[in-house]
């Protein structure tokens, strides 16, 4: 009840951009750690064996979605700040989410 001022599309775009950035930043150390196992091929293969698990595939889909949404949302922000003003930002924000589903959905279909 107290924070109804947030219930509008561009605020959701902002929070999605922030949460996706935060999640990606927290994911990166894990990502770098797994890749650093490449010095030992067997160790890397053991870690990658986890990725056959359907729950992991779904998590990977989530990560690709977060990266895509942060990327497309970021492009929208760069356009907002650096290109001449357009009133279409709600449409662009919706388009960014749609494009992210397309990209991450493509990934997911290849993963399963």
């Amino acid at each position, binding site marked *: 009840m107290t924070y109804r001022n947030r219930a509008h599309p561009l605020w959701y775009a902002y929070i999605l951009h*922030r949460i996706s950035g935060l999640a990606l930043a927290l994911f990166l150390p894990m990502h770098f750690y797994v*890749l650093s196992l490449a010095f030992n*091929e067997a160790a890397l293969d053991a870690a990658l064996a986890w990725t056959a698990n359907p729950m992991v595939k779904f998590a990977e889909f989530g990560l690709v979605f977060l990266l895509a949404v942060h990327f497309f949302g*970021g492009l929208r922000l760069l356009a907002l700040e650096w290109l001449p003003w357009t009133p279409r930002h709600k449409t662009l924000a919706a388009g960014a989410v749609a494009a992210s589903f397309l990209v991450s959905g493509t*990934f997911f279909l*290849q993963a399963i």
Partner: protein
Amino acid sequence: MEFRLYLLQRITALIMAPLVICHIAVMIYAIQGGLSAGEILGRTQGSVPWAMFYGTFVVAVSVHAALGLRIIVREWVGLDGIVLTGFSWATFWGLLSMGGYAVAAVVVGP
């Protein structure tokens, strides 16, 4: 100073834009038939172009993520002053060193 950090944030974003497109495309390709060390290393081991690609990516993301997290902890956790500066530098060096090590691992290999 704050405005220069803002510019750095946007510039690293621009640098990473084509790198992200390429990375997602490669992931969509690579995930087919499952992931394996052999497949990854077959691409990256001894490759100067991949070293440069991922090296640039790691430097840019270390700056971008450190600056992004800086804003979040300032607005949502209330950090400021020397604690905020320390946190930001720690994040930057942490990501740069882990990322650099990961790039070295996939380029040098077993």
